[in-house]
Structures are given as structure tokens and as C-alpha cells.
């Protein structure tokens, strides 16, 4: 009788160890949840040329306003700094002054609690950069309108060629 019980115990324990070995052989998928900020370019944006002396991202003038989305997974961890361009990164040779104007605005938010972002923002770099403390976790869409006028108020025609200006979207840990 004792031998029979011992035999059952040995078989039972072996079975358990086989099952546990099987469980350990599974493939692990590891992941980390940590605070992060992601900068997304949802709409690339481009300039329209409604007249000879203006380049603009306004849709009414055949341009497209770039949309930048910033996602944060932790409240109060980051601030967003969005700047409209104040110079061309590539252009034909320009002999006259280009006057830049623009506006950065909150276009959409993932939470109604973020409705105060625009009012809480501050400016820097002569108004070209707008700084938003990201006090709530979630997504915020920013629109960056930009207008370049050539001739320093004299309305001179831009030289023909390709023009590129850069919008800077920054996410800085606080």
C-alpha cells in the first residue's frame, strides 16, 4: 500500500514539473510603461502663392497649415514649444527683406480639461515661439500658420524657385 502511495506521489510530482516546464517555455513579450512625449506631424503643410510677393500656408490661398500633435503620457512632465518659421531653410538667392508673420494655436485636444492651454501659453523669440505647459496627459494638436511677404512692404515679387521653411515642434521635459 505504501509503495502504491509512493508511486502515485512520484508520478504526480513528475507531472507537475512537466507542466511547470511547459509554462516556462512560453515566449515572453516585454514592454515598459514610462513617461514619454511623442511629436507627430499629422499634416505636413505647404505654402500657397496667391500673388507674386506672398507665400502663405492659409488654405484660402492654396496653402496648407501644418498640424503637429504632441502626446504625453504623464501630466506636468513636459512643455511643448512650437515655432513658426522666421527664415527660409532653402530658397533662391534673395536680395530683399522677407517679413514673416505667423500664429501657433491649439487646434484640438483629447480632453476638454486642456481647453485652457492656449490661454496659459507664453511666447518667446519675438512671438515666433509659443510655449505650452502640458499639465494634462493626452494629445494636443497645434496648428502653425505662416506667411512670408517679400520686399519689406514694397510688395516685390519673390524670385522664381523652390522655397522651404521649417516649423519647429519641441517637447522639453520639465
Amino acid at each position, binding site marked *: 500500500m505504501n509503495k502504491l502511495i509512493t508511486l502515485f506521489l512520484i508520478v504526480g510530482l513528475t507531472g507537475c514539473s512537466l507542466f511547470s516546464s511547459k509554462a516556462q517555455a512560453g515566449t515572453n513579450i516585454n514592454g515598459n510603461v*514610462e513617461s514619454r512625449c511623442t511629436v507627430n506631424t499629422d499634416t505636413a503643410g505647404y505654402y500657397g502663392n496667391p500673388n507674386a510677393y506672398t507665400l502663405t500656408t492659409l488654405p484660402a490661398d492654396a496653402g496648407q497649415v*501644418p498640424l503637429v500633435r504632441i502626446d504625453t503620457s504623464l501630466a506636468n512632465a513636459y512643455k511643448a514649444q512650437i515655432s513658426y518659421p522666421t527664415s527660409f531653410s532653402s530658397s533662391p538667392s534673395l536680395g530683399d527683406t522677407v517679413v514673416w508673420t505667423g500664429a501657433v494655436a491649439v487646434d484640438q485636444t483629447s480632453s476638454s480639461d486642456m481647453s485652457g492651454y492656449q490661454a496659459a501659453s507664453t511666447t518667446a523669440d519675438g512671438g515666433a515661439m509659443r510655449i505650452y505647459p502640458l499639465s494634462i496627459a493626452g494629445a494636443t494638436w497645434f496648428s502653425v500658420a505662416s506667411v512670408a511677404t517679400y520686399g519689406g512692404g514694397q510688395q516685390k515679387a519673390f524670385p522664381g524657385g523652390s522655397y522651404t521653411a*521649417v*516649423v519647429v515642434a519641441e*517637447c522639453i*521635459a520639465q
Partner: protein
Amino acid sequence: MYRPVILWLLLCGSVAAHDMTPTYPEWKMSFIPSAKMTTMQVFNKRADVEWYQIGVFDKDFESIPFVTRYKILNVKYLSRVEFDVYISNENTNDAEYICSTSKLRSYDNFKPIVESRICSRFK
């Protein structure tokens, strides 16, 4: 009403993104006695960008000397690159930010106009 739509956009609309972790890195001992190191990761979900420049800055965003394998990293679309940054011991207290900045290409017809920059902070 709009929240499910926004959430759907958040999950499905991420076509061009850039992130860097950790948010708050720390300097650790390195194999060089006079230098400390930290390890960062850049993830590239921007199809229009595959180069990212790394920089270390003080609280006023003035550059601080550092060493890494490549200061301009090639990060393929949808890939993650881990890199080590070394800094001399005397600069560790001044280093406030470590940033990755997208490098925009200008050699072809498609010219992205949004430069993304993410900065982690040493605390």
C-alpha cells in the same frame, strides 16, 4: 461624443512620430573613470525622416561636450535605436537636457517642413 473619434485618431493616425526615452535619465558610472554615461532610446515613426541629431545642453540650452558613437543617428522608419552618451565628470552637474532633433532632407522634391525635437532632462 468626440472622445472615441479622437482616441481612434490617436491610435490609428500616428503616421509620423518621434519619441525619445527615458524622460528623466541619470548619469551612471562608466568603464572610463573620468566619465559618466547614460543610455537613451530614439524611436522613429516618421517616414519622412531617418536621421536624428543628438545634443547635450545646459539649463540655457548651451551645448556641452559629450561623446557618443554617432552624433547623427540613422534611425530607420519604425525602428528603435539605443545609444550611450558619455560626458566628463566635471560636466555632469551642468548637463540639464539631452535632445534628439530630426534632420530634414533637402535633396529631393519632398521637403518636410516640421522639425521635431524631444529633450529629456537630468534631475
